[in-house]
Structure formats: C-alpha cells, structure tokens
C-alpha cells in the first residue's frame, strides 16, 4: 500500500490538526477527521489484522460497519476494547492500538503457517475428528487458538446510561435520503422528529462525494435542520434493535472519541426509542468479488477506495485496478481519474458495458478488459499482480490467459446489498430482485418505510450481472467470509454433504457468523450455494436478521444499575442507629436488616449466644419493622379472610388475634401470620416479614379477578409503621417506663391480644404475640418516630442490660421454641397437614383457597415430609441446616434439616426439619447425612425449650 505524503485538497480531515497515535508500538501521524483505518492507510500499512482460523494477513476492506479485516485491540488495561473496527474508531490524540490474533504481530504471525493447512481444515472438520483417543486430549489446543482480541482484565472504569425517548417520526441514516425525510417530516412544527446517524458527522455517502454540488446540498440541509426546534439530532448513534410496537434500541458513543479518560459524561448511552413512524435510510453495502486469493491485503471495496480518496484525501495507489460485475465501479474509477489520480485498468466479468462509460474510461486512458475474470492475485504483504483469463461465452468456464497486470491495489465491486437488517428485525418481508441480485423490502409489518439505497433505489443503474464465483479454477481459495476463513469450497462441501438449508450451510461453514455478521459475505455465500444447487437464489432463501444490527457494548445494557443500584434494598427507619450499634447487615428478602450486633472481636456464634440469653433472661430489642401490616376493610372483609385463611375467621372476636395459615390454590403454604380483628369490618394482617407485598398482591388478585362481588379494600401499611419487638422476662418492666395510655400490666393485656393508644405522645399499636417464646410486645409507631422509640426503649432498658438482637438471634430463639419459619422450615411442597393442621381444617366447614388440592392423592401420602424437631444423639454434636435425613437403608433422602442452631440456653444443638412421615415416628432414630459425614439423631416434637410455654405468659 502506497504511503500518502499529502492529503488531497477538499478532504474532510483537518490537516492543521495533526494527531499522533500508536499502532503495534510504532508511532504514526494522522489528522483530526481521520478514522483509525484511514490513518493506518495513510501511513502505508497494508496488513493490519489476521483472520480467525488460518491467521491469513488482512488489510482494510471497507470504511464502516462492514469491516471484517481491520479489527484491533484498542487501548490497554481497564480501557482496553477488543475487536474494535479501525474503520469506526475516530482518530484522537495518543490513540494506542495493537493488532490482534497474531504472534508476535500482525505483520509477521507465526500461526500464519496455518494457511498452508487450509485443505486439511475444511468446513466443520472438527466434527469429523479429534475423537481419538478422546476430545479432551485435543480440547485445550483448539481452545488456545480460539478468539480474536483479549477481554480486559479489570472492571470497566467508564460509565453508561440508558434513556428513553419518544418521537413521532424517527429517521435512521443521515445520508441524502435520510436528510430529505427528516426535512419533510420536521416541516410540521408539531411533529417531533428524531434523526439518527452512526457516523461522526451527518451526510452518509455524501461525505465521500467529490462533487461540490453534493457538499453544498449537504451543508444547506444541515443548516435547515439545526434551525428547527422540533427535531433532535443524534450523531455517533447506531440503531441496533427494532422491536415490537416500533420500539428501537440505539447506542450513542458519547465520549469514546475522547479516548481513555473518565469524564462526567458516560462512555456510551443506550437509547430506548418509542417511535410513531420509522423511516429507514440505512443505505447499502458493497459486496466483494469472489475469485482466488481475493483476500490479499491491498484488495478493498471500490466504494472504500473512493471514500478514502475523496473523504480522507488519501492517494493509496499508483497502479490501481478495478474489478467488477456492474457499472458503479466504473463511475468510481472515473471519479478517481477526474481527481487526477492514476487508474490502471478496469476488469469486468461482463462482455458488454454501457457505451458512454466505455468512452469515458478510454478517454481517461484506462485499460479495459471485458468478459474477463481475475483468476489469481500475488504479492507478499499486499497485492502486486493479478492474473486475467477470458470468460467463455457460457460464463461457466475460462478461455486462455489474457495477461497479468502489475498493480498495487485492487478495488472490487460485486454489487450492492441494501442494509435491510432493521427492516427485517421489524418483521418486514424481503423479496429478491434479480436485476440487482439483492434483497429489497417488500411488505412492512410495522409502521416503517424504507427510502433510498436501503430500498434498492440506487439512483444510477448498475446493470449488474452476478458472477458468484470464478469458474474453472479451484474454489478452495475463493474467500467469502474473510474473517472466519470461509471459502466457496466450504459452501460446496456443505451442499455435497446435504447441508442445503441456508441455515445449515451457515452453521456448517460459519459463513457470516464472524463479527460483521455476514454484512459482506451473506449474499455471496447465498449465490455460491444457489449456483451449486442449481436453484435460483430466492428459493435457497435468506437468513432472518435479529438484533443487534451491529455488535453492542454489553455495559450499555446495564446502564447505571450496578452495585448498590443493581437491585434496591429496603432500609429500616432506624437503619442509622443499627449501624452505630455495629450491626452486621444482611439481605432478608428485599430488606437489609441486622443479622446480629457483634461486640469487639466477637464471633457470630458468641454474639448470637449473648443476644439470645439476654432475651431469655432479661430483655432484648429487635427492629421488626418489615413485619407485614395489611389492613382489610369492608362489609365482606370477614367472609373474604375466611376464604383466604385455612383457619376459621368467622369466630374471631373484635380485639382478638389469631394465628393463620395461607395457601395458594395448589394447597401449598405461602404465608403465616397473625390476624387481628379491629372491628367487625376491619382487620389487621401481620404477614411474614418481606411477604407483605406478595400477599397484598395475592389478596388483590383474588378480589379483582375472582370475587368481584365482595366489598373489600386491602391497604398495605407495612412501611407506615416502625415495629419494634421488645422481648424477654423484663420486657413489661421496660415498656412500663414509657409514658402511654395503654395498660400493659399482665392482668390487663394478655398474650395474643392487641391494643391501640398512644405512646410517648404518638399513635401506637401493640400486639402481644411471641416468636421468641418469651413475653413479647410488638410495638408499632409511625415510621418517622421509629428511631426515637428505639432510643427510648434502649434507655429505659438500660438498667436491665437490654440488648439489641438481630434476625439470626431471633431465628435461634424461635428454633429453640420449635416455631416454624415459612420459607425455612417449609418449601414449595409443604401443605398444612405437614405442619399438623389437618384436624383444624377438618373442623372448618367453609372452602378456602387451596383446600381442594389437599385432597389430591399427593396430599394423602403417608410419607409426606412433615415438620418435626430433630435431636442429635451426641449431646455435643453439631449439624447444619441443609443436611439430609436418610432412608433406613441409607440409599436415599427421607427429609432434611431445615433449621439448626447451637442453643446456649440448652447447651446443645436444636434442630427442626421436614422428614418423611415424621408425625407418626416421634422418638424414632434416624441417620443424618451432611458435609460428607453421618450422625445419629432422633425425631422429637418441635420446641425443646420451655415445652410448657410458661415463659410467654409470664
């Protein structure tokens, strides 16, 4: 490749702003306005990459998304980006890129020797071999050579945001057609228009036009658009996904062009676009010609040569040859000549070409070879020579050699492929147009229109005659997919082995599966397949396009919602106080709650022991605010709850409280809690902590979808109230010290009763229930007063050495007492009879949610896993929840330990479990298996501590 000494006049690069950059450790110079690709070419670098499988040398092929050769590792360390397309990277000062998939470098790559093995590595060869002695002995080798660039080794230092936007009309592509569409749509001031283009500047193909008229038109159009308030312009933005209901996803490269720096602005922004109407003006991509050694560096698309010349002002060659099957390349060649640049020859597979073009070419002194094919290319590190053969009249064979040409660049044009990826994603149908050998939009499925070259409107006629592959010469080196090293012979092999569906061919040969997703190879592959099968292209079919149109940064899909923002956690009203008290916080459902409050250097087990003993012997305080608080109102509230709970709610008296179990319609226990009757038509449901929202939704679903006749209102007031659990023999003494109008004396306020009043001047609700086995007051005040109440109780409890205790201590305490915890001691199969509620259900006349399911065969199995206590034979034995109870023959599972703690009060392990037929096996010996070892235990009634239950009535 020739080095460009001076840029042509009129180039869209700013030669007054030189920029230095590095490639493979060497410093080079480019200008503002260059892409990395144009800068590399300007410096005469013809080999910039290596192919995936055979490590063949690769030079720049195109100018944009279609690029499958010039892939580089951009920057290094945390800022590193693998597989960056040099054609899409705007040059910035200090840019540092290295070649990929090569050792030691892309110029000289040891694995380049792979090229010689091509014949032994045909399509899907790996499925046919590496089986002896077994795949594992080969796997490491195959894996080692896989991949292209390298993934960064540390977290992404830059940020991403996501933003939604609505528009009446969204125009995608700001070439001539797109600009025209945007202008006419935005003429109506009430119409919100969004114009999106993937390049650094608007203009599309106009940017590469050498014509002053085009440049003038572009400047005028942009000026008009900038002036309009109802249009939003997005540059550097690629629309990648077209979804149902005209929703689009687009990636804006906000600050990439600044290089590896962290700024306030994100690196990229993912736009989620809600469009009324979409106009696709996405242009078309040029196809390579297919001939032996067409992958040699220095061979590029004719449109690319034109753009590098007219837009970037490069003079890449002294002896460029054009090779084509259509008129467009002729016009490129003539434009080059007009610019005063040399053009050696035009080789055209067609026998007849438009007379005017011929004249102009001859006038420009260009050698012309019609009905001629290029049958080979030569040159190390760049094309130096091409061999020409006449094509016989039948088009299927070759005549004698014509000649060979010395050249330093080959520009090819195999025709044009409209960029219909987004159209296809939108559900639109495509149809094949023979005259241009390409697929064009047919019937739209959504509100979308396609304009310009994307719609197959090429302006000037191409008079294309496809030459899918070069006849009479080996197809082994006629490349289709330059990156994945797929050749015409691979397609033929696939067809030979009866992989004839286009999807089979794609998967068998990997044609079009490389990072450009077949932008340059799909249609050529299809053509070769059609020719091989002797069937017309449309019968062979095309693959359907899916997002993304162009590979999209993974981080952009995440946006800001990482770390603490990945999933919100609910914070307790007194969170700050717990923090100050040194709480260890953990996630319990959606809430972040204290697990325990370790003293200095105190282990978890010691902390749990201390906290639980404080509750057993003195008094403890737990932040119980997540306790579900649903209020149910209405004339039908009682009837409703009677259908919701397995328990009889009809007999619950005003002021009374009752434990209740809730099932889903499948009979599975989903919640337990305490139901309080505040008035005939007003109930308070204390659901499990964290279960509040789910149960609220469960209740509203039944009311809204099934029992529309019931007059009931459900109100979730969980976070309105801070709830503190004051528990222990000294609990009453502590509570008495706080001024309030509720008589908490033993006589006036018995276990399982509820009171409303005021405490410290605030509305207050107190429930006497116990989950610890000790006297407990569950005290609720408006959440904003939670911290004050916490402090007041801690102060009042000071003389009794009150201890704040966490969830894990509560779990220990309730395990000692044998109180079950939904979700720990029950699973998705647990039915009420497994918890000993069969008799109660018998007594209840009315139906309730899930009742019928209990009567299915499964509900009557004698060996259902039932809730039980488990006692280890070894008094010093330990067991973890998760250990299994084995069947008598030890061959299988007969249940598992669901809760297990070392009880400081009892000085031994207490455990609960779900065990097959446990209720009938009380006292029976069992074997427990956990962490690889077995131990003996026996089944006991739940509740090892204070079996009489005197403590909680104290």
């Amino acid at each position, binding site marked *: 490749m020739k080095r460009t000494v001076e840029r042509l006049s009129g180039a869209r690069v700013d030669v007054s702003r030189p920029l230095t950059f590095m490639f493979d450790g060497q410093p080079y110079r480019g200008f503002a306005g260059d892409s990395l690709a144009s800068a590399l070419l300007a410096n005469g670098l013809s080999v910039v990459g290596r192919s995936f499988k055979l490590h063949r040398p690769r030079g720049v092929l195109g100018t944009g998304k279609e690029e499958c050769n010039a892939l580089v590792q951009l920057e290094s360390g945390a800022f590193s980006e693998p597989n960056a397309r040099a054609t899409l990277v705007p040059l910035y000062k200090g840019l540092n890129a290295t070649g990929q998939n090569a050792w030691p470098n892309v110029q000289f790559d040891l694995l380049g020797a792979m090229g010689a093995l091509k014949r032994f590595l045909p399509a899907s060869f790996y499925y046919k071999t590496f089986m002896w002695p077994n795949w594992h002995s080969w796997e490491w080798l195959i894996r080692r050579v896989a991949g292209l660039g390298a993934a960064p080794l540390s977290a992404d230092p830059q940020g991403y945001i996501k933003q939604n936007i609505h528009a009446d009309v969204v125009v995608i592509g700001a070439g001539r057609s797109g600009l025209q569409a945007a202008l006419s749509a935005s003429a109506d001031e009430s119409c919100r228009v969004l114009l999106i283009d993937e390049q650094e500047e608007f203009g599309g193909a106009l940017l590469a036009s050498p014509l002053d008229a085009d440049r003038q038109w572009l400047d005028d159009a942009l000026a008009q658009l900038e002036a309009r308030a109802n249009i939003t312009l997005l540059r550097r933005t690629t629309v990648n996904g077209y979804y*149902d209901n005209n*929703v689009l996803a687009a990636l804006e490269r906000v600050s990439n062009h600044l290089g590896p720096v962290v700024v306030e602005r994100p690196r990229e922004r993912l736009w989620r676009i809600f469009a009324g109407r979409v106009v696709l003006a996405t242009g078309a991509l040029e196809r390579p010609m297919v001939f032996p050694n067409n992958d040699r560096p220095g061979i590029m698309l004719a449109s690319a040569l034109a753009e590098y010349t007219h837009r970037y002002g490069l003079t890449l060659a002294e002896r460029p040859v054009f090779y084509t099957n259509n008129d467009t390349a002729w016009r490129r060649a003539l434009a080059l000549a007009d610019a005063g640049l040399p053009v050696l020859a035009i080789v055209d597979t067609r026998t007849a070409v438009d007379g005017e073009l011929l004249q102009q070419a001859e006038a420009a002194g260009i050698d012309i070879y019609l009905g001629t094919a290029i049958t080979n290319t030569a040159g190390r590190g760049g094309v130096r020579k091409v061999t020409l053969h006449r094509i016989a009249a039948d088009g299927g064979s070759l005549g004698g050699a014509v000649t060979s040409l010395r050249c330093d660049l080959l520009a090819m044009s195999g025709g044009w492929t409209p960029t219909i990826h987004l159209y296809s994603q939108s559900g639109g149908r495509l149809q094949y147009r023979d005259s241009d050998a390409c697929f064009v939009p047919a019937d739209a499925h959504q509100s979308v229109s396609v304009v310009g070259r994307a719609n197959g409107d090429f302006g000037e006629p191409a008079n294309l005659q496809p030459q899918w592959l070069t006849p009479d010469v080996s197809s082994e080196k006629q490349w289709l997919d330059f990156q994945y090293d797929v050749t015409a012979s691979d397609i033929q092999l696939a067809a030979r082995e009866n992989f004839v569906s286009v999807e089979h061919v794609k998967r068998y040969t990997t044609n079009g599966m490389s990072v450009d997703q077949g932008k340059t190879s799909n249609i050529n592959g299809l053509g070769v397949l059609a020719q091989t099968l002797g069937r017309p292209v449309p019968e062979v079919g095309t693959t359907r396009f899916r997002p993304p149109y162009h590979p999209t940064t993974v981080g952009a899909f995440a946006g800001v919602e990482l770390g603490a923002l990945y999933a919100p956690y609910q914070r307790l009203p007194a969170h700050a106080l717990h923090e100050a008290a040194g709480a260890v916080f953990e996630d319990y459902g959606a809430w972040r709650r204290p697990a325990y409050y370790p003293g200095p250097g105190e282990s978890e087990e010691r902390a749990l022991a201390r906290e639980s003993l404080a509750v057993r012997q003195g008094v403890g305080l737990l932040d119980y605010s997540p306790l579900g608080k649903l209020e149910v109102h209405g004339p039908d509230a009682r009837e409703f709850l009677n259908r919701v709970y397995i328990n009889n709610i009809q007999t619950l008296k005003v002021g009374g409280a009752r434990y209740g179990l809730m099932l889903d319609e499948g009979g599975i226990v989903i919640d337990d809690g305490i139901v309080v009757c505040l008035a005939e038509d007003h109930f308070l449901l204390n659901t499990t902590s964290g279960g509040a929202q789910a149960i609220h*939704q469960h209740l509203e679903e039944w009311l809204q979808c099934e029992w529309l006749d019931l007059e009931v209102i459900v109100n979730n007031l969980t976070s309105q109230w801070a709830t503190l659990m004051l528990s222990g023999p000294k609990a009453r003494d502590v509570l008495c010290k706080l001024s309030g109008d509720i008589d908490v004396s033993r006589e006036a306020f018995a276990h399982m009763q509820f009171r409303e009043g005021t405490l410290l001047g605030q509305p207050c609700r107190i429930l006497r229930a116990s989950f610890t086995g000790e006297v407990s007051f569950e005290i609720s005040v408006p959440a904003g007063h939670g911290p004050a109440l916490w402090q007041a109780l801690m102060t009042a409890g000071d003389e009794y050495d009150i201890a704040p205790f966490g969830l894990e201590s509560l779990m220990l305490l309730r395990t000692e007492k044998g109180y079950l915890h939904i979700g720990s001691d029950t699973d998705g199969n647990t039915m009420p009879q497994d918890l000993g509620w069969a008799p109660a259900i018998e007594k209840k006349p009315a139906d309730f949610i899930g009742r019928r399911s209990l009567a299915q065969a499964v509900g009557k199995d004698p060996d259902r896993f039932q809730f039980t206590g488990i006692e280890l034979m070894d008094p010093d034995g330990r067991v973890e929840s998760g250990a299994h109870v084995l069947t008598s023959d030890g061959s299988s599972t007969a249940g598992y330990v669901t809760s297990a703690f070392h009880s400081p009060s009892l000085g031994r392990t207490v455990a609960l479990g779900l065990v097959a037929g446990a209720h009938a096996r009380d006292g029976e010996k069992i074997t427990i298996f956990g962490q690889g070892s077995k131990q003996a235990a026996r089944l006991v009634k739940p509740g090892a501590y204070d079996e009489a239950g005197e403590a909680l009535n104290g």
Partner: protein
Amino acid sequence: MIVIQCPWCGSRSEEEFTCGGESHILRPEKPAEVSDEEWAAYLYQRKNPKGVHYERWRHTYGCRQWFNVARDTVTHEVVAVYRMNEPRPTPEAEGA
C-alpha cells in the same frame, strides 16, 4: 417491547405490567365436588394458543389493577383490552 393500554393509566410499556397468564378460567363453584382430573384441569391445563390469547395483566407498577388483554402470541400485537367485569370481545372486534 409490548405496549399496553391500561384501562385507567393509558399507554405504558410492558415493563410496568405483570402477565398473569390465561384469563377467563372458571374456578369450580364447589371445589369439593369436582374430580381430581377436573381440579387439575382448572389448575394447570392451558389453551396456550398460537395466535390470539386471552390473558390477564396487572399494572403492577401503576394502579395495581388486573384487566384482560387479547394478544397475538406470534406477533405480540395487542388486539383488545377490557376490564375484568367486561365480556370477552368478539373475534371481529379483535380484527383477528
């Protein structure tokens, strides 16, 4: 992306809703009196059509209301939206 007209809140993206599956499934009047097979059919059997599906959605992040949606399971096109207490629209109304 499915965009649904909530009968109360208007057009919202599917991210605000929860799909509750097939609608118009009748709960047996007297569950105790149906056979295991009938009960299982009520619990588990679904039409799961390839085409227009009558399903219920809840505007979970909005007004918390359940309502019915007639939606094509292939194109994801919403052809009708109606409240729980409204009858299933006729095929004409769906344009299906």
